[in-house]
């Protein structure tokens, strides 16, 4: 299982890109943290989620 923003999901084995494609997140408006480190944007395709991983996805909204 992979914890995403506090919720356990059965997505181990997927890449970050594959997981994001199945959600409503807009990749141009997010930052992804995995186990305490930023996931480089260039590595979304190559980063495979592992059992026990913890992801925090920040999705930005407009205004400032």
């Amino acid at each position, binding site marked *: 299982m992979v914890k995403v923003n506090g919720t356990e999901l059965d997505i181990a084995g997927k890449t970050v890109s594959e997981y994001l494609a199945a959600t409503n997140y807009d990749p*141009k*408006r*997010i*930052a992804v*943290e995995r186990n*305490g*480190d*930023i996931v*480089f*944007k260039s590595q979304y395709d190559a980063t495979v989620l592992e059992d026990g991983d913890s992801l*925090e996805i*920040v*999705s*930005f*909204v*407009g*205004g*400032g």
Partner: protein
Amino acid sequence: MIPSKKEWTDALIARHGAELHHRFSSATVAICGLGGLGSNIAIALARAGIGKLLLVDFDRVDITNLHRQQYKANQIGLCKTDALKKNLSEIAPYTEVETVTAKITEANFRDLLKDADIVCEAFDNAESKSMLVNGVLEQLPDCYLVAASGMAGMDTCNTIKTRKIMKRFYLCGDEVSDVASTIGLVAPRVMLCAAHQAHTVLRILADEYEI
């Protein structure tokens, strides 16, 4: 009559103590975007005695900014960098202020921000926020980042908060109130989010890293 630098410093030390004043006055803080967030962050940090502010924005003061941004009616048409530098010089004359009138992009952010101890992301566009946050976390490994998301509309002030997302990265706002789906931005709620950002900067400088 403007106080001397010594009088100014003594007054800050009397308020904050010598140790905190030293930390604040030794710091360089970059503020990216000088709208409702950035102009308010800058004034709060200048008042607190931050040594150097790096102000970056490409835009000019518009009449539609004045309901929430720290500019004056007679500054419409000026570059925000120049107008804010002038206002800061009147509020806190001994804060060093460097300005860059340019759009921050993936190509230039690293050079512009490399000397900052802490970067405040204060843009209004969600994609620009994401670009800067990812860029700083990926390419400026010694820099702290305080970003904002979600402060538009008339919802209660009590949903604006600060979260530590990871080491070096703090996020302020309610994270949901998009300017596109609300009546827009109103001064107190934007100022509150800016205050969260400015105070997070001070806490980092005080070695208070947890929320």
